[in-house]
């Protein structure tokens, strides 16, 4: 078994709507693999197919070497899943939630007694182990679910938007926890998100999915390097002399210039150099620089480059599980 997850021409249609359109990719053992895309891109449907919740229309996938349709139960035994909806039992305590799931996975009592306190410790919930989950904050609940997904020591961990709806502090703590668990437990993690900054920092590789199709797949660094310009300079000027746009375009290393009134957005292959030249050109033309910022290319820029649009609202893929009660935390 070469890859943790192998996906081959995987397709899911809901009537006329193609939610996932013949995807092909592999996930290496031990990597954090990010699925990035707007709502309705097909990320959740893809995860649901890989976790045996939704049967594919065509194509195949193997998870931990097992076919997701023919060997579904073996797949289930080797994966941990945190669905998008908050699926914890609110009336039960963290301890009870974990115990029930450990029993569902058939873990013997002796092992349960050892594993559960240890997991609760790892997600910093020991103190709250016996409190009902309904008293937990969103971040605590997610951490409890992460612990729950690991009770049977899975090889591969699937998380569908684990940080959506959490405050920034909880988001950071969830990601740090995932990174640590991955190291300590030799996990392969598949995670969907629409937070570009998170994906950038934590994923080893990122697949950009849009309209059910794969738009790009590589490490965050390579993805950013793959688009023109390394930096974005944003400058506004008090006055704009004629031909100023041309002046800007002639700046050394400038790849692309967009003007919006007095504001100019310049993508460049060498930020520092272009910036210096820009300031000199402004002084020579006696133009005052009102504001100036230089930024590195972000995954947002990558996303816009590959999909041709910003992360935007779209219709969700219709699915059998969609109902008024599911909290789509997005």
């Amino acid at each position, binding site marked *: 078994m070469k890859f943790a997850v192998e996906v081959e021409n995987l397709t899911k249609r809901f009537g006329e709507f193609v939610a996932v359109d013949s995807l092909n990719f592999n996930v290496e053992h031990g990597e954090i693999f990010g699925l990035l895309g707007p709502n309705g891109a097909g990320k959740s449907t893809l995860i649901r197919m890989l976790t045996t919740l939704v049967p594919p229309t065509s194509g195949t996938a193997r998870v931990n070497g097992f076919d997701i349709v023919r060997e579904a*139960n073996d797949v*289930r035994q080797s*994966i941990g*899943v945190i669905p998008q909806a908050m699926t914890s039992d609110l*009336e*039960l305590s963290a301890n009870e939630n974990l115990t029930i799931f450990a029993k569902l996975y058939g873990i013997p009592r002796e092992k349960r007694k050892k594993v559960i306190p240890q997991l609760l410790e790892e997600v910093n919930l020991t103190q709250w182990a016996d409190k*009902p989950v309904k008293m937990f904050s969103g971040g605590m609940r997610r951490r409890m679910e992460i612990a729950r997904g690991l009770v049977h020591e899975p090889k591969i961990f699937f998380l569908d938007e684990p940080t959506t709806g959490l405050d920034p502090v909880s988001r950071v703590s969830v990601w740090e926890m995932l990174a640590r668990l991955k190291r300590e437990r030799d996990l392969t993690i598949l995670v969907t998100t629409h937070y570009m900054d998170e994906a950038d920092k934590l994923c080893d590789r990122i697949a950009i999915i849009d309209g059910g199709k794969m738009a790009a797949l590589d490490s965050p660094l390579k993805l950013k390097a793959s688009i023109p310009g390394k930096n974005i300079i944003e400058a506004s000027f008090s006055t704009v002399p004629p031909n100023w746009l041309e002046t800007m375009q002639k700046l050394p290393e400038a790849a692309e210039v967009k003007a919006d009134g007095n504001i100019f957005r310049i993508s460049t292959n060498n930020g520092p150099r272009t910036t210096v030249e820009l300031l000199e050109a402004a002084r020579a033309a006696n133009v005052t620089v009102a504001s100036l910022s230089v930024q590195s290319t972000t995954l947002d820029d990558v996303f816009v480059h590959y999909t041709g649009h910003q992360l935007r609202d779209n219709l969700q893929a219709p699915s059998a*599980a969609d109902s008024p009660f599911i909290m789509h935390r997005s």
Partner: protein
Amino acid sequence: MHRVWAIIERDLRRFRRSPALMLMSMFMPLVQLVVLGYAFGGKIQNLKVGVVDEDHGVPAIKLHEMFQAVAANAKTFTPFYYSDKAVAEHDLRNGKINGLLDIPPEFSRKVLAGANPRIALVEDNTDQFSSSALEGALTGMMPAYNSPQVQPRVTAGATLAVVEVYPYVPYIQFLLPGVIVLAIFISAMIGGGIIFIDDKARGLHEGYLVTPIRKFELILGFTLAGALKAIIAGVVLISLGSVIAGIPDPLNPLRMMKMFIVVVATALALISMMFLIMVRVSDPLVPRAIFGVLNTVLYFPSGAVYPTGSFPAWMKAIAIVDPFTYSVHAFKQLVLKNTDLMAVSGDLLFLFVFTAIAMTLATVLFRRTL
């Protein structure tokens, strides 16, 4: 099996944390037992009967005496005397009196001549219960009126002697079996319908479906957990209900044991029926919407509130497949007659077969994917 237990354990732990909803399932039937039990089925009394005597003869006076006797003892009706027939008719139409007895002018003469004497009862038949009570009281009076002053030693005509096998059964006791089944039904509806679909919609089932639990284990777990809660409701009702309804020796241990077996059979039948109905439902509004309809369609044709003999054919057809019918019948045998289990073995057989069929169908229809 340990996975089945995990599902049951989780459900019972939740039940222990927030029992309010399930307690409601016992409260409603108890209220119904008390209110309906006393609202229906009591002896109808204090009807008002207008009497117009156009005869004034001695035989008519004998009638007046008998009316007074009824008013004083059985209290079924009280006579009000009218001198003007038109006024009496007006009062009858306006609902001031429930019936009007007319003693015609020729009555005494016809009695003495033995020439087919008649008195007329004009009744307000918009209220069938009152009018049939009134008819019953007056019809019962007539043989007494007709009997000769001196009884012959041997009666020539045939008479009907009624022997009541059981002590008088008040309506509240007649109602108890239906109310026990109703309590089991409501907890099956809440546990197997509403809570089940809410969990599904909230994504809790999604959490189970990614574990290696098998379809049958999942359904068995849900069924047994739901049945356990319904059994708790049933046990409360057979004991508390028997006390409230005034069943003689209400907590007789042997009868309670027999009733417990019927409670278990009923709970299993109703919860598996509920899962069969809900197996493909995912909208949380559906179980709430069909709750009332299902309750009416199953409860009333079962003979729980009125004997099935009077039903039209389509309703009898419902009664034949309705598990309520068999549970109610079994509880009636045990509550009202304290029979042995053999007398209800047919009912138990139906309930177990029904459970097996419903469970099998539910398992076939259940989808292990979203």
